[in-house]
């Protein structure tokens, strides 16, 4: 594999900024969620208190894990149904909110989209600029971008509280956490980011699309230039690791991501909160080294994925490279490698790091077409989602997924070396291991069963645009993405069918809510436990040993689960490509 100096400098610069941001942001979130006073309180506390008075929320009331979960489910059902209603009544939105006069969204597509945005997936079986009115984009989809991101954050906070508290029956108040995540974190960041995007050239208006004619002259070829309130949606789309584009081409479109600078801002936004949450975790449990150990494991996995993706893409297509007249080496006049499906303004490195990150996290926005990657390059995003998007991960979702792996890791370590399974001074007992195992099994069952059934008949097969192993990867990626609430598409799959709309909707709901249910049960169980003093039999969960153990546990668990499916798809495709066999 070959690397350009740009690819290495980009990774190094990005990593340093991410590292430096973790502590201040993590400290801020710790202060906020532990009930302290932040620098935003003088302005926002009156608004927060007003919201509680208006809704009758007692901010001092503690909830058990079931109460916390049921509150999350209640607001999810409500907002899902409201979004569905907005989509199904587009014809009444009026000229200001629906200047293109789009009709109501079809039933199953509307349901799939409502589920998709409720679950933070943002899988899109529609092109935004030709389907959704401005009201649907803002009141339905962008609102969900905020709500689902806030829910991910507070779910992680609840789990961290459960791990940190001793002999407690409650894990916090969902409504208070939810309001704080929205008001103190997401909204202020999004205001700043929106202005940055507008500065870079992202539109923010309510204008009808502009009709322009090309060089052929007026009346010959007319093109409509889509626009709208894009910058504001772009900000939360990335920061909240939602990923649903206002425009069909997502962040590859110059109106969503116009410059390399806006691309770098987006890269930072994807990991920013997730990285801070890991530091918050360490601070909350009273030992920041706990947080840094997890952060280090995440960073190792991120770097591994990036260097595989960028290396294979820079190497390019081996079949093309074997032809004497095709030059695939980088030079002063061409980027070399595999540029298919990549924007020339970003090139290979900025595309590969974006693809890696957006699937490390549950973001799912794209600035390049993942299907056009080399088979192994495209396997990186697929595998990232498959292991559970725990590499910094979605806002909150990455941390609670990683904490599940931590519990599995200390349990496995305990079995291997005869140490007592303990985590953060609390004994890991049968209940926690059962719940963690349940969470671990739900995702592969969801992904592999739906993929398997889709491959059994015309309901799933008829939408595949590419034959051979690539076609399997398209379906496998789709269900992996929907289960992981990622939302990025491999591409090449016509998924706006009743089969994919309905099964995809259930895959997203299962991947979001059923996956989290056992984890919040662990929070409730751990909160009740007393801490036990560290002994010689305690397996240390700080330091390099634990980070490396965690990395290996994640890789081994994921490899055992998905390797057969990957070998029939991307790995087989790469081997066949090496033998110059294409489909």
């Amino acid at each position, binding site marked *: 594999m070959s690397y350009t100096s740009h690819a290495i400098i980009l990774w190094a610069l990005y990593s340093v900024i991410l590292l430096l941001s973790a502590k201040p942001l993590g400290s801020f979130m710790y202060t906020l969620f532990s009930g302290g006073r932040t620098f935003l309180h003088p302005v926002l506390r009156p608004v927060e208190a007003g919201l509680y008075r208006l809704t009758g929320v007692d901010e001092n009331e503690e909830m058990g894990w079931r109460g916390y979960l*049921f509150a999350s489910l209640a607001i999810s059902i409500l907002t899902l149904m409201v979004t569905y209603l907005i989509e199904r009544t587009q014809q009444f939105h009026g000229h200001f909110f629906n200047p293109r006069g789009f009709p109501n969204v079809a039933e*199953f597509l509307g349901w799939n989209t409502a589920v998709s945005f409720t679950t933070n997936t943002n899988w899109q079986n529609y092109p935004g600029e030709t389907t959704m009115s401005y009201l649907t984009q803002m009141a339905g989809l962008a609102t969900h971008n905020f709500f689902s991101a806030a829910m991910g954050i507070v779910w992680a906070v609840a789990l961290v509280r459960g791990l940190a508290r001793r002999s407690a029956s409650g894990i916090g108040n969902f409504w208070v956490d939810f309001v704080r995540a929205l008001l103190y974190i997401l909204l202020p960041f999004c205001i700043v980011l929106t202005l940055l995007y507008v500065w870079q050239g992202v539109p923010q208006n309510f204008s009808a699309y502009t009709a322009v004619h090309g060089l052929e002259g007026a009346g010959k070829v007319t093109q409509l230039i889509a626009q709208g309130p894009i910058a504001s949606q772009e900000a939360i789309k990335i920061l909240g690791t939602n990923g649903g584009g206002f425009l069909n081409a997502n962040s590859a479109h110059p109106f969503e991501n116009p410059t390399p600078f806006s691309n770098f801002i987006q890269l930072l936004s994807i990991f920013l909160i997730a990285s801070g949450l890991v530091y918050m975790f360490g601070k909350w449990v009273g030992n920041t080294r706990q947080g840094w150990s997890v952060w280090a494991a995440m960073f190792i996995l991120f770097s591994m994925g990036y260097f595989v993706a960028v290396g294979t893409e820079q190497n390019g297509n081996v079949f093309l490279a074997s032809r004497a007249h095709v030059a695939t080496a980088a030079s002063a006049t061409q980027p070399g490698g595999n540029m298919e499906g990549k924007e020339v303004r970003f090139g290979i490195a900025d595309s590969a790091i974006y693809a890696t990150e957006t699937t490390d996290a549950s973001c799912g926005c794209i600035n390049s077409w993942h299907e056009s990657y080399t088979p192994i390059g495209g396997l990186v995003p697929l595998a990232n989602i498959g292991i559970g998007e725990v590499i910094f991960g979605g806002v909150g979702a990455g941390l609670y997924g990683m904490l599940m792996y931590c519990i599995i890791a200390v349990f496995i370590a305990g079995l291997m070396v005869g140490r007592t399974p303990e985590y953060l001074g609390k004994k890991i007992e049968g209940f926690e291991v059962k719940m963690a195992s349940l969470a671990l099994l739900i995702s592969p069952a969801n992904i592999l069963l739906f993929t398997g059934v889709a491959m059994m008949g015309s309901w799933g097969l008829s939408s595949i645009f590419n034959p051979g192993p690539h076609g399997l990867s398209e379906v496998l990626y789709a269900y992996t993405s929907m289960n992981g609430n990622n939302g990025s598409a491999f591409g090449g799959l016509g998924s706006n069918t009743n089969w994919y709309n309905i099964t995809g909707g259930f895959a997203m*709901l299962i991947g979001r809510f059923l996956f989290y249910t056992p984890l919040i049960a662990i929070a409730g169980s751990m909160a009740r436990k007393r801490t036990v003093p560290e002994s010689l039999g305690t397996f240390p969960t700080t330091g390099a040993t634990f980070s490396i153990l965690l990395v290996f546990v994640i890789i081994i668990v994921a490899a055992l689960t998905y390797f057969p499916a990957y070998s029939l798809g991307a790995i087989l495709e790469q081997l066949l490509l090496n033998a110059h066999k294409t489909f």
Partner: protein
Amino acid sequence: MFDVLAVVMTLVFFAANVAFAIGCDRLMGGRNR
């Protein structure tokens, strides 16, 4: 017609999720509300 189905699918899933949570709680011994 399909609108009703969309609502039913949503409610069925969330009812199943509540049942799953109650099942987890039973496994825990029903200690935490």
